[in-house]
């Protein structure tokens, strides 16, 4: 099953990356090409948007005529679509208010949506259509708990060592796939779950976090918790639907595409796609 086929049941899809250049834009463009009529915005990529304005970020998203995008006021001059302003929201970003724009032509756009997850809820009613794609932040932290499905992008830009990239990606996939805990007798941690959780936790106990985005422990800590037979779970699970990989990197020589795909598929239980071919 292709990635678009896999994602067709979901309305709001968030795409997040393990690192810069891990293939977030390629994945977005791939999905836009497949779905055609979509609404687009981004979440929590303020830093990246500033990079866009300063010219350090060259990643561009290609949209088709009639796509509706929600982006920051100051990024509009960097979009080469013909624009129809549909609305101006009350949501502020470092690059001005978030405005809703319809593309009157095909073209490249730059997205700078809300900074925080809570504002996405205010924004979603402004966005039409049955496919809304959200360009998530680079980093697994906090902003992932939006939408009906999440696609994680990983690649050679994360580390020159493929072994390390696979190990860390598998770790994030496992955390993101943590289940909702239904039983009794557990320790609920309302905020972020850090490595320090290891101290003071007894063998066989269960830790419940609000959602996977709140679990910021390292893979080493995760392994140690497992060795202690500690169960990790969440109150609000995520639907991590797929993983996309980018075997190339601007920082190193990259990995062998086939080898990377094969090893990644062995490491995780969710579908893995290489869209960089």
């Amino acid at each position, binding site marked *: 099953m292709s990635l678009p086929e896999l994602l067709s049941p979901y309305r709001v899809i968030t795409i997040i990356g393990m690192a810069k250049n891990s293939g977030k834009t390629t994945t977005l463009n791939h999905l836009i090409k497949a779905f055609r009529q979509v609404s687009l915005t981004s979440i929590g990529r303020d830093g990246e948007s500033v990079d866009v304005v300063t010219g350090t970020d060259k990643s561009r998203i290609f949209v088709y*005529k009639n796509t509706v995008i929600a982006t920051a*006021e100051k990024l*509009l*001059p960097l979009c*080469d679509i*013909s*624009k*129809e*302003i*549909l*609305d*101006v929201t009350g949501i502020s970003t470092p690059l001005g*208010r978030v*405005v809703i724009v*319809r593309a*009157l*032509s*095909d*073209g*490249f756009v730059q997205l700078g949506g809300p900074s925080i997850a809570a504002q996405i809820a205010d924004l979603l009613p402004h966005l039409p259509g049955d496919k809304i794609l959200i360009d998530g932040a680079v980093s697994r932290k906090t902003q992932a708990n939006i939408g009906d499905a999440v696609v994680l992008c990983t690649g050679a830009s994360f580390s020159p060592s493929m072994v390390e990239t696979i190990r860390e990606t598998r770790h994030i996939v496992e955390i993101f796939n943590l289940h909702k805990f239904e039983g009794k007798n557990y320790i609920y941690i309302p905020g972020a779950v850090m490595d320090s959780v290891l101290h003071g936790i007894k063998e066989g106990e269960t830790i419940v976090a609000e959602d996977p985005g709140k679990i910021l422990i390292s893979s080493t800590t995760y392994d140690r918790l497992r060795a202690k037979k500690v169960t990790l779970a969440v109150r609000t699970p995520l639907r991590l639907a797929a993983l996309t990989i980018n075997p190339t990197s601007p920082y190193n020589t990259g990995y062998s595409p086939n080898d990377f795909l094969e090893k990644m598929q062995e490491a995780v239980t969710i579908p893995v796609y290489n869209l960089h071919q």
Partner: protein
Amino acid sequence: MFGLDAVQRETIGLNYVLTRLEPDSPYGREKLKHLSFLDQAALEACFDNIEKLMDFDEIRPHLAALKNIRGSITKTETLTQVDIFEIKHFLITFEKLHIPELKGISLQPMSDALAIVDPSGLRIATYTVESPMLYSIRKEKLRAEIIDPLLVEQEVAEETRVLQEITKKLRKHTATFLSNMNNIGELDLTMAKARLAQELGAARPILSKREVLSFKEMGNPYIAETLKNHSLTKIFVTFDKGITIITGANMGGKSVALKSVVLNTLLCRAGFFVFAQEAEVPLFDGVCMISEEMEDIGQGLSSFGGEMTRLNEVALRTKSDFLFIALDEPARGTNPEEGAAIVRGVANHLATSSSICVIATHYNQVTSPRFKHYQVAGLKGTGYMDYNLVEARHDAPPPKDALKICKLIGLNKDLLAKINKEVNNDTNTNIRP
């Protein structure tokens, strides 16, 4: 605001009233932040408008849809597409504002400005920069298989030219925009005042040409709200030029009466209906209140020192201004002999001014045949406080309610017995003339 500090605004109920006032538009909210005393003509116009705007609410959704576009209207740079979207949205909404004839509030038609941002006249709320050239560029852009950077460049250049042209045209309407925003603000605020008067039951005051401040069945919605289940006595008072002394026991409601008078006087001067069946309010230049609740007066002075400094300022102001002065328990923190002397001195001094001054005090020796005198009605046979003010002779004996209040609030019997004993001793040794 209005010469009161933040704590006083809170305790008299002004904040409560102003928070209940909910203008729908950003322009009305701006006006609310800059309330001030109005002159006689403006007040009469404002009261007429409030009467006319009672139950007028069909334009409220349009007012609520308005956004603050002052920034776009006054900016010096070329307007952006987003700016013009907002201006267009403002103008389309503005077109729907049909209002009755009012005094001093009118909206100037803006159809010329709307024609600039909506040349097709379709009144669609979205906005695209348009021109014949843009039309052909975009047509070509749509035909092209791949994005042609040259076309994009041409489009941007032509859009910039059109935006500059529109900016130039709109600039001619800046004054009309600003005037209309100002009038929308007034309209919105006046509608909010009318709603408030209906919700909380307020009536149009009479602007007195005499130096008389008078309220019949006056209330205070803030204090009524804080008392919840207890009903607040409606107060009848008339203060003339010169001094009025209000005496009464602690807990006797002197303060409540004074705060309510200050609240309603301020509201009237700022163009609100007042919380009274009838009210006659002269055109004070200012309202001064000195009370226990004032914010720390600072300058390292004690609260007594601070109070006297304020009093000094007020006394100086009476030389040039016609004031309403409310003194709530002045010199309360001082020993009774000096305290009473100070209050008498203050009263005698202010009596020479042309202002209206009300002093609430528990020092009974302050009254004089030259001053008007109100007493709090006090405890009635039913065991409840009657907060009403009753005019009394200057030599009327002070109501001795303190002990009854002690009993009412359930002081323990032993303690009450000890206090009673002391009171009896005291009256035996210091028999009053």
